[in-house]
């Protein structure tokens, strides 16, 4: 009931603010994402989306998007001239999984592929994942 009435209010605001041209694009975009069939289930996330920040050669250091490690530091007032990045408590509250490029494997695989191309080796290659190989050796 509440949802229905809020929806009506939003619809009313929509007609005031947004042209008719935009509504179909926005709703079709959402609709397209919602309609992906046989999709991965991600708890509390509406779409089957994996977000990837792929940086190279610099490491993405994704942990910086979780929030400040020291809450007291976040409360410290700073000059307006400086960007108070640490003051943002929850930078990324989104529920869709977030990942970065696995740099060790990216570099290793890229080098292997380049070597194979130079020797005109066009056979399918089982890609060796450096880190997993390393871990397996550790377990032995």
């Amino acid at each position: 009931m509440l949802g229905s009435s809020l929806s009506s209010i939003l619809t009313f605001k929509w007609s005031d603010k947004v042209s008719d041209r935009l509504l179909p694009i926005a709703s079709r975009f959402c609709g397209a994402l919602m309609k992906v069939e046989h999709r991965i289930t991600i708890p509390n996330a509406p779409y089957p989306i994996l977000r990837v920040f792929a940086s190279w050669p610099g490491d993405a250091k994704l942990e910086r998007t979780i929030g400040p490690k020291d809450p007291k530091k976040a409360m410290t007032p700073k000059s307006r001239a400086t960007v108070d990045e640490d003051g943002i408590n929850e930078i990324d509250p989104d529920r869709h999984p977030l990942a970065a490029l696995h740099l060790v494997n990216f570099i290793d695989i890229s080098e292997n592929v380049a070597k194979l191309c130079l020797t005109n080796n066009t056979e399918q290659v089982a890609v060796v994942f450096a880190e997993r190989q390393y871990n397996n050796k550790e377990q032995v």
Partner: protein
Amino acid sequence: MELITHISGQEQIKVVCRVLYGQIVYGSYSLEPFAPVNEIANLIEYGFARIRPEGPVIDEPLVIMAAWNWLEMNGHFSLLQLLQLEVGKHATRKNGFEAYLTFYIRKVFESKTTRLNDIFIFRSDFARREDSDLSWQKDEFELVTVSTPAGTDQQKISIVTPSCGPSSNVGFLAQTDDAVLNWISENKESYAFCFPTEFTGPDILFYLRSKATGELLLVAMQAKNYQDVDKQTLVQGVQSVTPPFWKSKDKKVRDAWIFTQLNTNFQMV
């Protein structure tokens, strides 16, 4: 193979190289951005290119295959070589690092043992859930195209590797928001990768399929060829791949997104 022997001179080979790889990586067929008029005339004379209503193109499958084989066998003209040379280059809608990433993604998912968390490192809060509700991050995945062929409602899923796929062109440079929408839901041309418009947040979109469950995952990727990633760049990049991933400067467009998100959630309740 014999077709390529008709081409003489480095310049003509370079033209074929750029045209062919432009088609493969970005799905654009036009010869005009790549070749001067006299080169186009030569390519038509040799039977490589032909005139279509949209302009001169190289679109004969046999010609493409012959040229592709020849170029790949001559290392310095291979697709990888070209992509590596252009990794640091950036044009308005074409970024060398993004193009290389599509090559890498195709190559890496060709492997028989491709676990998702071998390709991507999940942020710790998501990685910790690998034994619970996000266990699929340890699963093996494959790169696929998701399309709905004309005249049917049936979704068609095709596996893509560097050596096979439903289309010779793997990338699609979307020119409009509608084109991005069509790629997500219909993709009749079966492109594996979509490079969305500049007003859509992600740089690259592609579908993966879990080998264990057959379930689909849409990957929204932001690519940064940076030596160091500062925090502001990181935060903006993450926002750009976060639904509703729309970075239009037009507030009305952003409002449209927020409205639709809210309305969709209410309908779900």
